[in-house]
């Protein structure tokens, strides 16, 4: 059984990679996947802490996060499709109506 810190390091690495992905990629779906990655990194932290504290609150929280992620996926992907219908593209650079 590995100690807590190893899991936390892995979680931090995954989270950072997710952040970099969100910042560098232009494809909205890929950005979305990177966000999922970040969420999962957080999930790992929750489960690890939960295990080492002997408390299940963290795992229940993970369960809720998954629910949110599912809802987010449904709505988010619907948004992408609507966006694609309008702009014929899925690039965030094309989401520029706010540009002056």
């Amino acid at each position: 059984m590995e100690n807590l810190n190893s899991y936390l390091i892995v979680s931090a690495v995954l989270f950072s990679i997710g952040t970099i992905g969100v910042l560098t990629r232009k494809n909205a779906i890929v950005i979305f996947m990177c966000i999922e990655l970040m969420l999962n990194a957080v999930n790992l932290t929750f489960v690890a802490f939960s295990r080492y504290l002997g408390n299940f609150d963290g795992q229940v929280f993970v369960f809720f996060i998954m629910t949110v992620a599912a809802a987010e996926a449904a709505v988010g992907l619907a948004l992408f499709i609507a966006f694609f219908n309008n702009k014929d593209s899925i690039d965030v650079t094309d989401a520029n109506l706010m540009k002056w």
Partner: protein
Amino acid sequence: MFDNVWLIPLFPLIGFLINGLFGKKIKNEAIIGGIGTLMIFLSFLVSCGILMQMIGLPPEQRVFEKVVFPWIHSGHFKADMAFLVDPLSVVMIMVVTGVGSLIHLYSIGYMHGEEGFYRFFAYLNLFCMSMLLLVLGSNMLVMFIGWEGVGLCSYLLIGYYFHKKSAGDAAKKAFVMNRVGDFGFLIGLFTLYWWLGSNHNIWTVNFMEIKAASHLLPYGGVVTVATLCFFLGATGKSAQIPLFTWLPDAMEGPTPVSALIHAATMVTAGVYMIGRMSFVFIKSPDTMMVIAVVGAATAIFAATIGTAQNDIKRVLAYSTVSQLGYMFLAMGVGAFSAGIFHLMTHAFFKACLFLGSGSVIHSMHHALHKIHSHDDAQDMRNMGGLRKAMPITFITFLVSTIAISGIPGFSGFFSKDEILWQSFSNPYHGNLNIVLWGIGAAAACLTAFYMFRLVFMTFFGECRINPGAKNHLHESPLVITIPLMVLGALAAFGGYLGMPKLMGLLPNYFEHWLDPVFELSTEYGSTYAQHGEHLSHGLEWGLMGLSVLIAIIGIGIAFTMYVQNTKLPGKFVATFPALHRAVYNKWYVDELYDYLFVNPCKAFGQFLWKGFDVLIVDGVVNGVANTVMGFSGIFRYLQSGYIYNYAFSMALGVVVMLGYFIFK
């Protein structure tokens, strides 16, 4: 009945709302005119009821204040929407609603077929409401609403034919000059309020409360300042020197407007205001003298101008200014009830004169219109011999002219003679009295002269009108002549209400009626009055006879010049060309004002526009805008509008802040 006093201004307001909001839809002139007339007539009935009730009460109980609703209550300051019913305001509402109803009725006939008929009646009703607020207001603020309201209506009605430039200019002139006066009114109000409040902790604008506290006011000093300011307001509204030039120009409005607003009611507001606050005015001997002098000066000054005008309405306008001068003279010599009495009789005969001139213009206009002539329908040189064509108009006009000239037996004689006698015998102005009387008498002579000149040029002599139009001249319809007859009767017999005690036939009802209002003022006045020897009845009879004689001389001169020997005026002009030119051009007062005030103002405005506004104000505004634009040109790169840039800054911010809190 007193409790229903709020109905009096309400009816015209309803009429204004109906005609103003729906008049365009109604279209039918009979209905619009009927509503307007009916509303003011209802007010007249209520006023009659109040008068009847007041007659039944003993003099001490003839004051009643009706609070309609609390208006402004803030700290010390308290002003209600309240109406004051006392003998003075009852006289005023009787005049306003009575003459007002007749003029409304007259307008139905006179304005027939005019574009904007409904607009005219809406304004007229609004005017009546404002005027009634003015005379009924129980505090200075309600009075001020009315004061401003009548100014506004005057502006609207002078500019009724707004497509004519001269009418628009006249309206603006009237409004601006009234503003100068209103400024004085407000300053006076503030001064009085401030002085009473800060020195005696009586914070009030209510007339009755000021009256109760008036014994605290000093003689002269701050009261002089306040009353002079009030008097400035009165000169603006009542067309006295120096603010009188707007009234003759105001004749650009329709004739009923001239009759109602610029002769019978609105222009007397200044006189009424002085009467209402007589207990303050009398406390300043200096102000009283200023009022008397200005009144006398205006009376003679306007009368001289009136002798040389050819426009029938302009003559009447200068006559109005002159008669208002008499009223101020009366106020200035402490003869308040005589002033108010002249106000009333003047309302009768001057309204009748204006309506009569309107009737003449109306018929002239139609006759000239029939033959497509472009002669001026208001120029007396185009008239003459109209008495046969328009007998009713002629008779009522003649009666009113006799009344204004001061021939015994007619209303103007009683009031004017009372004023002249009081200006001679009053105990306030010492040696100035004889001068005031002299000026008043000279003005009376001129009045008789120019009024009969008007009558002779219009109704006598041979007809100078275009021969083709002559056959089209005819008497005006009944709706016009009925008001004329009623007013003519009032002009003839209205004076018996205030017959001098001297004659002993009738008690001076009018003076007794107003006694409770002016009692206190007389009491204050007596503290500095110089009582000379008692003037005998013989002297009074003598002066009365003298003033009648003077009037008859004036009439005689007019008769000689304009009926017997019609070449005389031309010779006179040829002999004194400079004098005639000066009088004909109204002593160049307008030009003087243009030179002194208007042109400097315009130049200053030009400077402010070109120099100050364009360079400095616009420069600052544009400079600020340009600076902001320059900076935003740099900073706008932060706001790219792309989502990922915002995500980037957010992540950066999170990292930096997290790092700061972790590693600090």
